[in-house]
């Protein structure tokens, strides 16, 4: 997929003017946060579970090699295969090779952000394998040639009208605005594909070391058909998804559903443990797990380590006022919102991703809702520092901070300058006490007035008062 993160500002400007998008985003803002709050209120120990989850994730990350190896040996024991892939390219090649060995023409896919991250669909297509998305949102996007704008609700940027148009154009059926009818259409289209697929690819929400299982959670059940019907099941996931035991997994499942959709539990929680065994009624003949690193093991040793706790619940973007204003596509790559603003520079480079960690007021709402308590603002600030120290910060900003810093470090000079600038701005404001056009701050004054500063600064008034010996 094309990376447009360097154009974030322009993407955002267009998004802000897009009436349809703004309507769709209105649903994110009112829907998810409200549902999460209700679910939280029903579980008094929610915050305590968050602490437990944070601590457990920290423990896992510290012992990641041990748990991954334990997971691998269980998978092998169960008759499955594990593929370790350092880069996106390794992962793509590995997956294609499995598909080719099976002479696969079509593969069905469950929802997976890691396959977006490694750009799998385009690669498979270019190599003669047709991927078919089976998650309803992903299916709609595939028909439209779009990418997800949200990590759990990929088509959240669309309205019913858009879906209706898209289906009408692709399914050649009468146009409908009834969600149930549209759903039925998609089901019918997908049914044949499920049966025809040679390989099923899913992601994994978690990997369980003690049993060698992978789990996917969905609300549509499409994932089950994707991993049960084809002869080969490939799980594509990233290394930080491993948890020690089934018991540990349930802790995360409880947090994940509530944080993501406000459900107490997701509708389908489907575990896969190796290929079909003798006597099993269904299941694939082959079971492969593709473990993607793609910069994650580097993160363990860096200040971004805490980001590896992320369980991809999307609460941070659901509650982010910037995401709520500009939508996921503005971020210009796979992962949007606060978690994306931390991950994207790691994966595409700070040179291309720098505008993302800067696009935050540091309001801290994301951190306050994160189920594993990731200090997202702190991690975004890490990137700003990285950018500044690599001299990538835009010249104007760097210069501005330099000049300001020069005065801020010299209190006496600072006092003189501030008295002077106050007077100047005051003069500019005139009697109105506010400024509606300010040359260097047009970003402010294009949309709002600038209240004028005071005639005299507090420090001037205070020292006058001290000199006069007035008691306050």
């Amino acid at each position, binding site marked *: 997929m094309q990376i447009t993160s360097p154009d974030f500002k322009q993407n955002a400007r267009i998004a802000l003017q897009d009436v349809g998008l703004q309507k769709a985003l209105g649903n994110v803002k009112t829907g998810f946060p409200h549902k999460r709050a209700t679910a939280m209120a029903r579980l008094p120990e929610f915050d305590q579970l968050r602490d437990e989850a944070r601590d457990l994730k920290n423990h896992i990350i510290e012992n990641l090699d041990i748990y991954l190896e334990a997971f691998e040996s269980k998978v092998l024991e169960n008759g499955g295969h594990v593929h370790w892939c350092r880069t996106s390219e390794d992962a793509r090649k590995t997956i294609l090779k499995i598909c080719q060995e099976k002479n696969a023409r079509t593969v069905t896919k469950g929802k997976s952000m890691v396959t977006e991250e490694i750009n799998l669909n385009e690669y498979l297509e270019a190599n003669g394998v047709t991927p078919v998305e089976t998650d309803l949102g992903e299916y709609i996007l595939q028909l439209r040639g779009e990418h997800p704008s949200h990590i759990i609700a990929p088509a959240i940027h669309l309205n019913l009208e858009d879906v209706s148009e898209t289906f009408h154009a692709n399914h050649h059926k009468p146009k409908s605005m009834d969600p149930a009818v549209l759903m039925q259409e998609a089901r019918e289209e997908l049914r044949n594909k499920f049966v025809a697929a040679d390989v099923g690819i899913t992601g994994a929400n978690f990997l369980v070391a003690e049993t060698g299982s992978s789990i996917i959670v969905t609300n549509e059940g499409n994932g089950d058909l994707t991993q049960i019907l084809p002869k080969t099941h490939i799980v594509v996931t990233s290394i930080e998804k491993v948890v020690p035991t089934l018991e540990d997994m349930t802790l995360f499942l409880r947090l994940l559903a509530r944080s993501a959709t406000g459900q107490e539990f997701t509708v389908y929680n489907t575990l896969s443990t190796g290929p079909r065994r003798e006597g099993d009624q269904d299941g694939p003949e082959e079971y492969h797990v593709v473990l993607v690193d793609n910069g994650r093991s580097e993160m363990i040793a860096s200040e971004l380590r805490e980001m590896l706790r992320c369980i991809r619940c999307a609460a941070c973007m659901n509650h982010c006022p910037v995401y709520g204003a500009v939508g996921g596509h503005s971020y210009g790559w796979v992962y949007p919102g606060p978690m994306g603003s931390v991950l994207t520079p790691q994966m595409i480079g700070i040179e291309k991703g720098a505008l993302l960690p800067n696009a935050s007021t540091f309001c*801290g709402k994301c951190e306050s809702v994160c189920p594993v308590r990731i200090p997202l603002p702190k991690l975004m600030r890490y990137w700003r520092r990285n950018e500044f120290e690599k001299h990538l910060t835009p010249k104007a900003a760097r210069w501005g*901070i330099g000049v300001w*810093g020069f005065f801020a470090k010299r209190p006496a000079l600072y006092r003189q300058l501030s008295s002077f600038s106050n007077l100047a701005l005051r003069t500019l404001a005139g009697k109105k006490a506010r400024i509606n056009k300010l040359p260097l701050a047009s970003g402010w004054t294009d949309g709002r007035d600038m209240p004028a500063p005071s005639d005299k600064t507090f420090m001037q008034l205070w020292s006058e008062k001290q000199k006069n010996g007035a008691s306050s």
Partner: protein
Amino acid sequence: MNTNKNQPVVGLFITCLADLYRPEVGFATIKLLEQSGCRVEVPSQQTCCGQPAFNTGDYSTSADIARQTIAAFDGFEYVVAPSGSCIGMLHHYPELFEDNDPWKARAEDLKKRAFEITSFLVDVLKIDDFKVDATAPTFNGSVTYHDSCSGLRELGIKAQPRQLLAQVDGVELKEMEESETCCGFGGTFCVKYPDISNRMVGNKTQNIVDAGAKTLLGGDLGCLLNMAGKLQREGHAVEVRHVVEILAGMTDQPALGEAQSSVKAG
């Protein structure tokens, strides 16, 4: 420095925005502190808390400013500011120094002494019979309160200003929807991403106007300037003040961005 053993000595951290835009806020803060039995001094070696540099990723300038601020407030029992955001920044100072740097311990020490004004009155001084100066002009009308992000999420300031306002006769609090949602100021954010910032403040002013209060209050001048500027551009009559102005009974000054302000010290 302390003459009366029981009288807490407070260093006022004026903050750059109150210094430049709203000296009244400084004088109101002093009045509240003195009314509550504190002795207040204003160290002259202070400038800004350094947040613009910190949030731009310029840690070296941030650390220079942190050292300057730490030194300026050495020896004060407490450091109080009319801003959750700037006190929040003071609480970040320890992150700027390595563990073996002596400044780290001094930064930790400053952090323990640094409080936002409403939190200081309620949480530290435990003022429960707070009364507005009887000689001050009374405030009559409805207010709505914006919870600024740093104060709310970094310092836990939510109940304190409301608790104090509840003790001021004539104040009726009309809560707005989403009072905890960011107004879009965000320091340099508002000029780096003006379109997004402008949308966020537009959402905010909608909620403010819908609340139907006469006055918008808050505890941080950055946010207040942003919201006042938007309300005025949109032509709304809601006036904007820092909460200490009401608490100290200093509402004879024009509201933010309204007509000429001329401070009468004391």
